[in-house]
Each structure stands twice: as C-alpha cells, then as structure tokens.
C-alpha cells in the first residue's frame, strides 16, 4: 500500500467521520431542545466545517481551502459569541 493510497483512504475515513459529526450537529440544531443546545451545535458545526475544509484541501491539493479554513477559525466564533451574549444579556452590544 503506497503512501498516496494510504493518504486517500485516511482522508476518506476522516471525511466520512466529519460529515457524520456535522450530521449530528445538524440534528442537535433541529431538535434543540434549549437555545443553549442550538448555539453549541452551531458552534460545533462551524468547527467541524473548518476540519472538513482542511481535509478537502488535502484531498484536492488546493491551498485556497487552507485559507478558507483559517478564516473560519478566526471568525467562526463571532456568531457564537453574539448568540451567547444575546441569550445571557438580552442584547449583543451593550
């Protein structure tokens, strides 16, 4: 088994796992039941998305994917912070 085949299998496996994780996040997002559950699910969805994008970058061999992943890592939390602050304080910017 060559390195390339190993890599492609590994990536496939990781991709499947990540998409399954996303699916679970999606389920939690839909089911809830509390708003906190939904916000956590959304945050996790952002995170798994970042991972998915990284792996897609390895799979397609495209550097742009890594930059997209970096952007998600940098600003993915912003909507989580906004939602959490809204829940906790009733408004986003005091």
């Amino acid at each position, binding site marked *: 088994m060559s390195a390339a085949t190993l890599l492609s299998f590994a990536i496939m496996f990781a991709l499947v796992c990540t998409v399954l994780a996303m699916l679970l996040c999606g389920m939690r997002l*839909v089911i809830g039941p509390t708003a906190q559950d939904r916000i956590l699910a959304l945050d996790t969805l952002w995170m798994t998305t970042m991972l998915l994008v990284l792996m897609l970058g390895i799979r397609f061999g495209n550097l742009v994917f890594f930059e997209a992943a970096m*952007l998600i890592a940098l600003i993915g939390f912003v909507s989580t912070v906004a939602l959490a602050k809204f829940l906790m304080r009733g408004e986003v910017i005091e």
Partner: protein
Amino acid sequence: MLLFSLIFVPFVGSLVAALLPADARNREAWLAGGVTVYGLVVAASLYPEIAAGEILRHDLPWLPAQGLDFVLRVDGLAWVFTMLVLAIGFLVVLYARYYMSPSDPVPRFFSFLLAFMGSMLGVVLSGNLVQLVVFWELTSLTSFLLIAYWHHRADARRGARMAFTVTATGGLCLMAGVLVLGHIVGSYDLDVVLAAGDRIRAHDLYLVALVLIALGALTKSAQFPFHFWLPHAMAAPTPVSSYLHSATMVKAGVFLLVRLWPALSGTPEWSWIIGGAGVCTLLIGAFAAIFQHDLKGLLAYSTISHLGLITVLIGIGTPLAMVAAIFHILNHATFKASLFMAAGIIDHETGTRDMRVLRGLRHKLPITATLAIVAGAAMAGVPLLNGFLSKEMFFSEALLVGSDRNWWMSAAAVAMGIFSVAYSLRFIAIFFGPPATDLPRVPHEPPRWMRFPVELLVLACLVVGVVPAISIGPILDVAVHATLGASTPQYDLAPWHGFNLPLLMSVIALVGGVLFYVVLRNRFDLHARTRTPLIYRFNGAQAYETVMLRLTSGAEWLLRWLGTSRLQPQLLIMIIAMLGVPLLLAGVPTQWTTIPRQGTDPLFALVWVIGCVCAVAGAWMAKYHRLAALSLIGGTGIITAITFLWLSAPDLALTQLMVETVTTVLILLGLRWLPPRIEAKELETPSGVWLHRSRDMAVAVAGGLAMAALTYAVLIHPASDTISDFFLLRALSEGGGSNVVNVLLVDFRSFDTLGEVTVLSIVALTVYALLRRFRPAPESTGVPAQQGHSLDPASHQTPAEQANSGYLMVAGIYLRLLLPFLGVIAVYFFMRGHNLPGGGFVAGLIFAVAILVQYMLAGAVWVENHLRVRPHRWLAFGLVLACTTGLGAWLFEYPFLTTHTAHVTLPLLGDLHLPSAFVFDLGVFAAVVGTTMLILVALAHQSVRAHRLPSEEAPQDSRRPS
C-alpha cells in the same frame, strides 16, 4: 440665443432673487425690473421681423429620439402676448415694490413672480405642444406658490390648494389632449399641427382631443363650471391678483384656444363646447359680481365674466370674432390690471376692501379715484374707452350669430352688458357719497410711483379708446394676421360706426345697467345681501370640497381594506405572487437541452441533507421562535459556504462566510428591538398554531424549491461559451490579474461595482438616518430581563468592566489580541485579491468584523473612547477614491474607469505590479467597511441611548421632595 434668453433670464433672475437677503426690497425690485426691461428690449427688437409677417424659430435638441425638441417659436400672436406679459410684469414689479410691506419676505415674492414670468413666456413662446404643457403646469405651480404667499393665513392656503388642484388637473387633461393631437398629426410641432387642421377635424379622435384640450383651457381661464377657484385665489397679494389672475395667467386658457383655433375650430362641437361654456360664464360671472362685498371679489367675478366674453367670441369662431377676442384680451388686461392695482391702493390706504364700509373716497384719494373711475368706465363699456370698442365688436358678432334662430345669444349679450354696467357702478360708488368715518386707517394718496402703473394703464385705456387705429391698430394687426393667416377679415377700429344695432345694444346696456343698479340699491338692499340670489345654489367651491372629501375618505377606505402595516402579510402575498405570476406568464419551455450528469458524491449529498433540513426547520421555527430560526439559518449558511468551496468557487465561499457572520450579528441586534409578536387569536388553540405554521412553511418551502429548480435548470443547461470564455481569456492579458472574479469586479465591470457600492452607501446612510429618529416599541425599551438580576455580578458593572475584570475577562484578552491579527488578514486578503481569491469586499467585511467584535466585547462607549470609529468618513473616502480612480482615466483621454497597470521597481520589495484597479478596490474596501460599521453601530447605539434615558431621570427622582 436671444430668443432663448427671453425665457432663460427670468428663471435666472428668480434664482438670484431667492438668494438675496429678506429685507432687500429695493434690490429685489431693481433686479425684477431689470429682468423685465431686458425682456421688453429683446422682444421689442424683434418687432420689424414680426411686423413683416415672419415666424422666428429657435430649435434646441431635447429628446431627439422621441421627436421632441425644445422649440421657441415667435409669431405675431406670441409676440403680442410676450409684450403683454412683460409690460404688465414691469408695472406690477414697480407697484409691488411699494405694495409689499417691510415685514413681508420679499425674496420669496419676487423669486416666484419672476419664475411665473418665465413660465408664462414659456407657454406663449413654445413651438412644441408637449413643451407648452410643461410650462403650462409650471404656471399652475408658481401661481399656487404666489397665492399661498401669506401661508400663515388659512384662506390663502385653501385658495392656493383649490386653484392648483383645478388648474393642474386641467393641465393633465391638456397633456392627454396634446398627446391625442400628436397621435392624430404625428408630430408635436406647432407649425405642423396648425397646418393639419382639416386632417384633425376629420379624424375619429377629434372630439376626444377637443374635449381634453377644452378642459385644460377652461380650467385655466376660470370658465364655468370651473370658475370657482378664481375668487378664492384673491387671497393672494394684490400685485399677484393683478398680474396672474386678471392680466396674464388666466389668459393662458384663451391664448391656447386662439393658438389652436386654426387646428381645431370650425365644427359645431367647437362652438357648443367653447361657446356654451363662455355664455354660462359670462352671465354667471357678471351677475355674481354685482353681489360681492369684497372689492377684489367683485373684480374677480368681473374677470370671470370678461374671460367668458372672450371665450364666447372664440367659440363663435368667425374671423371677425377672433379679431374681437384678441382685441378684448388686450383691453381687458389693461383696464383690469389697473383696477386691481387701484383696489390694492384702496386696501393699502384704508385697511379694508369691504364695499359696505368704503364710501366718499374721492375726497381723500382724488387722483386714485379719478383713475379708478375711468378704468371702471372702461370695464362698463362707456364710449371713448377701450372696453367700449371690443364690447361693441362682441355685440355685433352676437347679432350675427344670433340673427333669427339664436335670438337668445343677443339677449345674453345685452344682459351681460347690463350686469357689467351695474357692477361697475357698484365699484365706482365707493368713491362717492359722504366720507367714511369708520375706516380702519385714515387714507391719503399713495406714493408717486405706486400710482404710476395705474396712471399709465388708464392712459392706455383712454388712448386706445379715442384713437384705436393708430395706437393699438398695428399691434393687433400683427396678432390677427398670425392667427388667421389668409382668412384675415377687413375690420375697422373706430369709436364711431354710425347708428346701428350694436350701438343701440350698447345704449340699452348702459341705460339698463344704471336703472338695474338703482333698483337693486334702493329696493333690494344690496348691502345686506350675504349671497348671490338665484345662483347661490350652484356653489362650485362647495362641490369641489365635497369631491375632495370623498376622494380622501375613499382613499382611506381603500387603505383600510387593502393595506396593512404588518410586514408578515405583505411578505406572504409578495412571495405567493412571485411564485404564481412567473408560472402563469412563462409556462414550460418546449426545447430543453441538458448536459450529462457528472456522477454522485454521497458525502456531498449528505452535507446538503444537513443544509436542507436546517433550512426547512428554520422555516418551521420562524413563525414563533426567532432565535431558534436564526441558529438554524446559520447552519444553512455554513453548508452554503461549504458548497461554494466544494464546487470551486472560493471567492464566493469567503464572501459567504463573512456575510453569514455579519448577518447573524445584524439580525441579533435588530431582534433586541423587535416588538413581541402580536398576540393573535390563533395562539389560543393548538390547531390554529399548527395551521399557521404549516401555511407559512408551505409557502417558504415552495419558494425555496422554486429557487432550487431555477438553479438546477441553469446548472443542467449547457453553459453558453461566449461571455465567460471572454473573461477567462482576457482577465490576465487585459485586466492584469489571474483571479477572474476580482478582475471582473474591479476592471471589466467596474462601473457596475461603482453603482453597487454607491447603492450600499445610500442604504447605509438611510438606515442611519432612520435609526437616529427611531423610537422602539414601548415593550422593548426597557432593560432586558437578563440584565435586571441583582444576584448577577454583571448587573452592577459597566460593559467595559465586564470585559476587563468580569465574566468576559478570558474572552476579552483573547479578542483584543485578535484585533491586529484580523487587521493583517484583512490586508492580506485585500492585497492578493487581484490574483487569488480575496479582494476589497471580503477584506472590508473581515475588517468590519474585527471592530465589531470589540463592540460586542466591551460595549459601544468603551470602544468609542479608545478607538475613533468614523463610518461616515470611511464611506466618503471609499466613494471618492473609487470615483477619482475612474475619473483619472479621463486625464489620459481614456473612457471612465479604464484601468492602467503600472510596473514599479522598489528597493526591498522588488518588482511591483500596480494596476489602478487596485486603488479602485481600495475604495470598495473602505466603502464596505463604512457601510457595515455604520449600520451595525447605528443599531448598537440604540442600547446606549436606551440606557442613558433611565440614568438621566434617576438623579431628578432623588432630588424630588418626597
């Protein structure tokens, strides 16, 4: 050019007059006088050509593609009217200088007056019918402004509104009529229309055009049944009444009829419509004038009656009648303008216009009295004055038409003569009798120059009345020849034609009028009458008010039944319409070429399943759970970004990620201020809730599916290879960048981008302006429930303290460290945008989010104390930069927004490739930062404002003694 300046100069004068200081009475008068004198000199210099029968034309291309040119056309008729407008205008300006009191804001008055003069000259000189209508409406507008000059008075406002509604509605009818006429003739050019008379009269649409144009002319000239606006317009300052509502503007209607006489007249319809309206007006106006108590009211009804006389003559339509009509237009302008001015002097000097109080004025105002009596006699038609001449021409025309069958025509003419003598006597009577002692002011003669216009006009009445042939003869001849052309009749202007029937009618009118007045006065107690006998029931003003009231309440009724202030039903109906209408209109295409499917990726499909489920669940939640719906839509947004990435659209993916974040924050900011849902009845039963949710979700899903189907149809359709290949091939060679999307945005289609950025900025400024005055719903003004908890330490801290030492400390340190990083990332994405995914838009959003995070962390007050956020400047800077980059291309004689690529070699950095599109992109970046920040910060400041209110009230409460 000289011709053009005739219209242009009054408008420029109007602009200058508006800018002078409020107390510059003399400067205003000099300016307005100068403008009119200039016009008079120019017009007079045209006389030799006009007298030779030439028609002067001056064409300026206006909308050449539509066959519309700005045409100025001067023939004899237009020239005479121009002279009339300018000469009376000059006298009115002189008079107004003394009439207006120092406390009146004169710039407004003279500005409107000059604008009116320009509009009126435009009507008179237009060689194109559409252009004529435009100026026509301008005269209505300026008349409205002038009537409402003293807008603190309710009667002025009411009169102005009434005059404007009637004349402007008439103007719209005229517009329609002109369009029909243009349709019949195939041109709007006056020369062409006038030459096509036979074709117009034979056309099926002749009656439609005639009725519409007649409506325009009759409303403007205050003809029955639209005459009611003129007496109410008397609330205007007297110079305005004398200029607009007796001498010029009300003449526009009869001018138009004379103008179009060659094209429209000569049919029974013409005679019945125009003549019929004229006869009614003539009698009603003259009769009602006798019973007025207001000096100006009497003159207004008399004006209505005289306009009716002119209209009857035009309705008769024989060449001799047209001569009489034009002659009477000129005569009426002279004596009525002088009478109005005299009435203004009397009002000015005595402080009242009530004829029941005024008497014996000849003792105190001997010169004014003499002038007014002479002008009044001209109005009555006393021999050796100009009114007599044209009235006698009218009598002879009435006799001619009347002959045997229509004997009532002659009877009406004599009746009108009797009435006009009676009201003239009523007017003159104020100068006789014992001097009044109960006047509000002790009268004395007005200033020399205030009386001068009256003297001049009365002199004109006399001269024309005694030696008409050598005084007015040549001028009248010019106008008559221009109107009638080959059919100009032989006519004789002389005060004495021997003993004939018209003279007898004049004598009957004079004697009968005196008798009628004496009877009315002695037996009928004229002064005690509060309403006009017999015809008071036909109250046009009342009918007008009723119609207006019905219209308003009808509109309210429609709004109540069809309108709603709630957004949800509007959205629902809109989406349903957008779903239904295209299906009905377009149908399914018959030919459908598709491309073969390119395999399935189960993982990608699974990702889509997540997105779809989130979207549908979001639609379900949106009805009653806003926050949950927002989270779900956030999930869909992420999936969309992944899709773009997976399908090789990295630019879109980056933008989508940023937009997703900004939108979530924006909606959350707005959610804070949304009022709670209206507690609807449906919430009382579970089935009601289910029904409404299902309905909304069905519509939402249908909308989504429709969009999906549309996208799918585009995707399976073979891509046309014309335009995208063009860009792919030329991006690097001509745009100097390998990122086609960015080159497309900032180079090939940069004009579109400039437009979009401008729209964005306008939206941001609008949001900002709206939010400045935003008052939230009372339910959401209070502090949110979460902040009111006394056990929570955050309740006692300012937002900044929370971030520095409170529960947000960890996040605070991390987020503040992140600010420079995000700045660097923004610069990075911006710099390489031309060749790799990125660019001004994404970079702008990243930068805006970097600042936004600081706001969320420590509150608006802290951030603005530590950081100068000036979204307006970002916005302005961005737009200016983008525009100047585009304009820069002009310096090198290239079209707007042409990109130039410079190669610069710098030490350390090496060879640099600098397209001017880069600067343009910088403008986009700044504008995007400005827009995003402006909207979000404006929303965020609502909280600061709301918090400030209770804290301001608190100290006051503590000081209040309890």
